[in-house]
């Protein structure tokens, strides 16, 4: 099978600071990739380059057949291509970013209605199914301010799924949560993985990684230092720096 995400020699500079130093990574359909590493190692930036919330400085990214080289300027045609990629790639943020002026169900159907021009009724029906799936059917008409952090993040996942994406990107989805709320979010992600969703997950939840990830990628100073199956990597990392990081977080 062809990879659904291809990252080729990706580089990203913020001014003088080089955050990504030539990353290459292929993700097969249905794979769950856990990206981990110290803060500042470039894990979030890598994820954000995949849906072009950050413009790559160099290299190439391909998502589900849409291939884009890094470009110095973002012109109209490129913006349109970026939008195509974003419609295929759902993203879940550390701090949820739900729309506070919209109810839960309105949060879900906003993009399907506005971006994909789906009818309200159709989108709503699918949205309610998704809310049921993340265990929040009874919160459909609630406003985000009334939800706990864990509930907010589950709504955010449902909101991304409502666009029927091909891949899902998770940027530290449990880092802003109180410890007792982490499990309910991981549960939803686990279910999603079981259904065969392709996922790239930046997280420190090594328990989740061990159980769910098909591959783990250790980033260090903007490079892939090591990658492998969770069982192999967690118990037998080759590189000293990977081992030291794992010792600290396990």
């Amino acid at each position, binding site marked *: 099978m062809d990879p659904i995400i291809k990252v080729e020699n990706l580089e990203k500079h913020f001014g003088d600071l080089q955050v990504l130093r030539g990353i290459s990574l292929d993700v097969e359909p249905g794979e769950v990739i856990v990206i981990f590493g110290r803060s500042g190692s470039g894990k979030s930036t890598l994820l954000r380059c995949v849906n072009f919330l950050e413009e790559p400085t160099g290299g190439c990214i391909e998502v589900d057949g849409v291939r884009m080289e890094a470009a110095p300027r973002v012109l109209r045609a490129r913006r349109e291509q970026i939008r195509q990629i*974003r*419609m295929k790639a759902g993203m879940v943020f550390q701090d949820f970013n*739900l*729309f506070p002026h919209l109810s839960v169900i309105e949060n879900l159907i906003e993009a399907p209605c506005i971006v994909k021009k789906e009818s309200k009724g159709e989108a709503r029906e699918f949205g309610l199914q998704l809310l049921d799936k993340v265990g929040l059917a009874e919160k459909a008409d609630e406003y985000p*301010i009334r939800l706990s952090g864990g509930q907010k993040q589950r709504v955010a996942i449902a*909101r991304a799924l409502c666009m029927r994406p091909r891949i899902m990107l998770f940027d530290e989805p449990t880092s802003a949560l109180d410890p007792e709320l982490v499990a309910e979010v991981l549960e939803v992600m686990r279910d999603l993985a079981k259904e065969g969703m392709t996922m790239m997950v930046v997280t420190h939840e090594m328990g989740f990684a061990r159980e769910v990830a098909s591959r783990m990628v250790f980033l260090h100073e903007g490079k892939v230092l090591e990658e492998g199956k969770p069982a192999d990597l967690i118990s037998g990392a080759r590189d000293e720096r990977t081992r030291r990081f794992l010792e600290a977080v396990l």
Partner: protein
Amino acid sequence: MTGVGATMGRVRDRVESGSSGVPFRVKLGLVYAGIAVALVLVFFWFQFDTAFMREWGPFILGGIPLTLAICFGGIALAMVLALFGALGRLSKSAVARGSANFYVSFVRGTPLVVQILFIYFALPQLAFKPSSPAFLQTILIFPVAFAAILALGINYGAYMTEIFRAGIQAVGGGQIEAAHALGMTDAQTTRRVVLPQAVRVIIPPTGNEFIAMLKDSALIGIAASGVELFGRAQNTGLGQNRPFEALALAAMVYWLLTSIFSFFQKRLENRISRGHVRIEGGGH
């Protein structure tokens, strides 16, 4: 001087200690009542002309509807201009930002009274230049109420541009990223995500601007007398040699109007700051 000061101090001490049992609100009420009585006494002491006020009061008060209409029209126009001004100032386009900057700078840098007179008297002059195309006569000459709305709207729009800009910038970057990540264009993000949330920040100060405009609308009276509230007061007051009566009446009305609108503005502000109020979007 020191002798007087010391005496005053002693009197104050005695009043304060003697009234320590009286609640402050009651004292405040007594002061207001005292001021009201003093004003009434002044009115009768100087034998102001009550017959004049009975005769001409209705005409002066008849300016209220137009004053209100001008202000509602003016604030509506100002909000539209402020929205474009704010989007312009935040735009990445040089044309949009340059135009917005010029608008704000020019309008804020010239007096409102000059702008009013310019729009009402100077623009029509352009319509009659030999080089002017004929259609200018239809678009540059307008009734004073329309000129007033135009002048107040343009003027307040420039000041409110900063209010709108602050409101738009108060919407977090995470909100914009979330919208983009869902595939929304910049325009969709602005319209569906940023502006509905900015409204919450924008509405209370816009209420204040409306109240300020209510008072500034009196400047229209400089351009055309006998039309709105102040113009009518000035016209009759000077014409009948009763300026005190006429202007006092107008002042009371402005005060009353601003008090009423301040009351509603505060309630609105409290409601919004409570945080759960929905501003945008329909029900279910």
